[in-house]
């Protein structure tokens, strides 16, 4: 049971990143690969500050600011230099690998015996329950915050930017500025995710972000499937579905591991699983047409 509970806590931690991918991919229609770098960046900054005995919340806040800065870099390269968003993201992500190494000073920083978010609260005797409670609290806060933002006039303008750029320009919205703010928000959430995961697993590793964008992508795609299936239109519930998507994703991985699959091929399983989610509706269509 504890095994699945910790998968649940992990899915909450990764849910912040899934929300980030939701913002960049679903709201702004930008495939943002910066994620891999800003996730590790969040973890690296948190590790550096905690090891140097910074208080927890300022450390997490600065980690998010660092992530936002990475997002702003990608957005600037994309909007001002008119470079393809995918390439802009890859460039920043690649650069961040060295920056993360510089921040950390070595490739792995253990965070054991340090006070983290998950040792903060002692409501229950079981540490996993405490972690679950804290994780729910913090992710719940950010879900509600994003929910609110997307309902405001500013949020409507954000959603319109990725949807119809001609419309937004004619209604007085600076699309480039919107994209910069959007990618800053997305990567701040991604960095928060990295920070949370590092605290939960009690270490930061330079390679922890490699391929992590696929986890966020998978969560958003599962959320899409759920959204169509449940016929949900309201933007707020779509954010909740993204967290649900993150949970389903981690559960599938947890079950795979418990079946005795070699952890070394977990990335392959992840990639195949995402492929399955993307391909399933199309395979279904092909089958329906064959029957006709």
């Amino acid at each position, binding site marked *: 049971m504890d095994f699945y509970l910790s998968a649940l806590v992990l899915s909450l931690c990764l849910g912040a990143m899934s929300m980030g991918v939701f913002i960049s991919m679903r709201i702004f229609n930008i495939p943002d690969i910066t994620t891999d770098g800003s996730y590790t960046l969040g973890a690296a900054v948190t590790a550096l500050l905690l090891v140097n005995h910074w208080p927890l919340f300022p450390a997490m806040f600065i980690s998010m600011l660092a992530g936002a800065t990475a997002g702003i870099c990608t957005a600037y390269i994309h909007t001002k230099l008119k470079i393809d968003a995918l390439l802009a993201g890859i460039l920043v992500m690649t650069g961040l690998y060295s920056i993360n190494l510089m921040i950390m000073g070595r490739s792995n920083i253990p965070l054991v015996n340090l006070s983290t978010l998950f040792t903060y609260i002692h409501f229950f005797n079981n540490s996993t329950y405490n972690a679950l409670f804290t994780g729910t609290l913090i992710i719940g806060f950010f879900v509600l915050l994003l929910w609110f933002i997307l309902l*405001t*006039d*500013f949020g409507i*303008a954000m*959603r*319109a930017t990725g949807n119809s750029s001609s419309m937004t320009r*004619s209604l*007085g919205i600076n699309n480039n500025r919107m994209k910069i703010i959007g990618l800053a928000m997305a990567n701040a959430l991604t960095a928060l995710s990295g920070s949370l995961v590092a605290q939960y697993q009690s270490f930061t590793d330079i390679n922890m972000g490699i391929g992590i964008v696929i986890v966020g992508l998978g969560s958003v795609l599962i959320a899409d499937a759920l959204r169509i299936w449940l016929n949900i239109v309201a933007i707020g519930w779509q954010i909740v579905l993204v967290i649900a998507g993150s949970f389903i994703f981690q559960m599938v991985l947890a079950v795979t591991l418990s079946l005795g699959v070699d952890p070394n091929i977990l990335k392959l399983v992840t990639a195949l699983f995402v492929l399955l989610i993307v391909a399933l509706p199309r395979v279904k269509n092909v089958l329906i047409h064959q029957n006709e």
Partner: protein
Amino acid sequence: MIQLEQVTKVFNPGRVNEVMALNNVSLNIQQGEFVIIIGANGSGKTTLFNTIAGAVIPTKGKVWIAGEEVTTLPDYKRSKWIARVFQNPFDGTAPDLTILDNFRLAALRTQSKPLKIGINTAFKRRVQNTIARLGMGLENKLNQPMGTLSGGQRQALTLLMSIMDTTTVLLLDEPTAALDPKSADIILKVAQSLIEEYQLTAIFITHNLKDAQQYGNRLLQIHEGKLVRDLNATEKHNLLLQNMYEWFG
């Protein structure tokens, strides 16, 4: 209201595909004028239009709107005067957003979009009353995504969105080109009534000579980047459709 002074626009200067889309065009449009622009494909009318809208920055010359020089001001900053209806009926609205969300943004065209929830019951009622004048029954579908509507419906809503915030200039770029005759008729009648009711300065590009004859109180013809005809209200009123066809002969 709108003034162009010796505006020239050259696309791809110095290359083999160099095009002079506007050639030394000067134009003065008064407050309350409803200007019709006609011209063959490639004559420069869309470039002229985009120069006013801010989507094209002229190579030479100056542009004024409401007494302010706006020559290099980008389009999203000119929205404080200008409302636009596009040729493609899908360009003026955001498909994944609801009708209500689309109208909310339109109501803030000349203002900043703050971090506040602006949609309330009063606003919903205002949108309902605005949409009801179309008589399409859309006022009861405010929470439906824009993308579920037809091109004609979306174009009609785009037009109504232009009066949600203060508008001085209404730009119509072949708004009926992609619509069936019935929808086209509705759009132009609604446009006409809005222009009169709100005393807008309007510019309407069209390929339909009948519409050009029927609507507006000033007629411009553009040919190879130059203004070749400029008819005032009386001249336009006396103009026969037959004469207009001959211009393109």
